[in-house]
């Protein structure tokens, strides 16, 4: 069937060339380069020449033995969990409320617009804004807490390990729960309404409907939110970097802030930073594989459907 007329297949290749070239130059090559640097002695500002180390895994061993790196990975995980659990719970609660047919919440549009808003605002700006808001001894948060009588004296949020971590986690939570909520609501709207109608006719309560119908049907979407949030969380940089520069005492130092500090300050240890990047990269690859299997099925279904439609169209053409 494909042989009739001009062969258009070559245009498929032509039109993919810009993408492939840009990917090879700006993504694949730097990735391979980073891997290579991880095995070399490349360090020092402005250096580009390097030799391979006698012990190729020296950088990796040093990084894995580095307490600051370990701490940064633990921090990244802790801050991500502190942000994700409240984020997904609140997003689910709001989803349950907004999609409940009995409550018919009014003004949903404006609530969504306002709740989502922090997500599109520059994270760098938000980090510095929160640094000012939690200022000590004078700052809006301290002023408010003292006016309300919750605090007797101003608290120095920036000096304590857990309040600093808490604020970074809160900023992440505050920026992302709206995004998760909108994604989940879209997922609920994709569930066939007849399921909810049937449940209502059978006398199910909203709570029962949510736990027995909505949640099980949202499984794929929830997994999507989880994985994208994890990959994003592993890359956490802007907020911890600018909020307290990773301090106090490395309490908000995340893996990416550590990598940046290794490579672009002090003795410019490009090789160690590259090794650390690759370790983070491995974690992301594992997560991406999970994501790949999640998305692939649906993509292929579509392709098959389209293929059938194409065959049908060709048949129609042939009969005319």
């Amino acid at each position: 069937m494909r042989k009739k007329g001009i062969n258009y297949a070559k245009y498929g290749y032509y039109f993919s060339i810009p993408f492939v070239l840009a990917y090879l130059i700006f993504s694949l090559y730097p990735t391979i380069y980073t891997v290579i640097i991880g095995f070399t002695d490349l360090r020092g500002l402005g250096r580009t020449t390097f030799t391979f180390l006698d012990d190729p895994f020296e950088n990796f061993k040093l990084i894995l033995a580095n307490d600051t790196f370990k701490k940064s990975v633990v921090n990244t995980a802790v801050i991500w969990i502190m942000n994700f659990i409240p984020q997904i719970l609140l997003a689910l609660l709001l989803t349950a409320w907004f999609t409940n047919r009995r409550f018919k919440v009014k003004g949903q549009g404006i609530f969504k617009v306002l709740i989502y808003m922090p997500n599109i605002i520059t994270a760098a700006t938000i980090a510095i804004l929160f640094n000012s808001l939690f200022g000590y001894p004078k700052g809006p948060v301290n002023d408010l807490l003292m006016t309300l009588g919750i605090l007797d004296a101003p608290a120095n949020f920036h000096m304590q390990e857990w309040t600093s971590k808490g604020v970074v986690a809160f900023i992440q939570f505050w920026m992302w729960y709206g995004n998760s909520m909108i994604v989940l609501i879209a997922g609920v709207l994709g569930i066939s309404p007849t399921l909810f109608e049937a449940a209502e006719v059978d006398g199910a309560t909203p709570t029962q409907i949510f736990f027995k119908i909505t949640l099980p049907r949202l499984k794929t979407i929830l997994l999507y939110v989880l994985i994208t949030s994890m990959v994003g969380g592993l890359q956490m940089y802007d907020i911890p970097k600018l909020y307290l520069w990773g301090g106090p005492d490395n309490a908000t130092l995340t893996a990416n802030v550590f990598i940046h500090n290794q490579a672009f300050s002090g003795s410019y240890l490009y090789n160690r930073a590259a090794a650390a990047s690759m370790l983070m990269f491995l974690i992301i690859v594992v997560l991406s594989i999970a994501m790949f299997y999640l998305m692939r099925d649906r993509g292929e279904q579509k392709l098959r459907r389209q293929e059938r439609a194409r065959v049908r169209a060709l048949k129609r053409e042939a009969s005319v």
Partner: protein
Amino acid sequence: MKSLKTSTNITKTIIYVVCIFLSILSIFPFWLMFVNATRSTYQIQQNSVALFPSTFLLNNWKILNGKSFNAAVGFMNSMLVSSGATLCAVYFSSLTAYALVAYTWKLRQPFFSFILAIMMIPAQVSGIGFYQMMYRIGWTNSLWPLILPSIAAPAMVFFMRQYLMATLSLDIVNSARIDGAGEFYTFNRIILPIMKPAMATQAIFTFVLNWNNLFIPMIILTRREKYTMPIMVSLLRGDIYKTEYGSVYLGLALTVLPLFVVYFLLSKYIIAGVALGALKE
């Protein structure tokens, strides 16, 4: 039945209280930022929470600009980077998606699987290699390394492909062929207009993403006249602005003002885009 109604009403009240609280939580930090941008350092030190603007906007502006922060330069650079990257991403992703949908070629399925596989990998992980490469070819302190990589935007190709599959009828392509149109001409003149709605949604997100990007620009740009907005903002954390509270708030406000304008003009499409992006169908 009556008790059910009462309990529904109580729940509804709780819902509205929570939603209004969350809305205030979203607005309040930014409100404080804009209001404090108009107040003097002395006023802020006396009481850092104020609901209404004061009159020191011009004064704060003078202090802000008298030091290292330059809003106009940051704005111009961010504008160039974000527009350039958005144009590249939208055009070439559409082209790649079209190649995946309209033509039957041997490597089509492997290529698509490849795009799915690399979709999640963020640019940060290859940051060190990227920096070394740019340093070698003398592209540090250039805006090109922030624009050109957008030509390969796997997630957007995926989105565009799903969109094309739902909307493109190959009859249009065939009739263009019969009329003697070349394949590239057909894409530019017939396919691109069909893709406009998808392009608009994706353009907003790419633009905002690039506007907010900090990690890669921070690596590539070291000269102040090349700084984009987020790096310019990081100057406000420096010691020279330590006691200039009003100017810091003003600087912060300036960096996000364009985003607020865009957001409130296009919020409907942005919210719809977030929902669509997740379903990818």
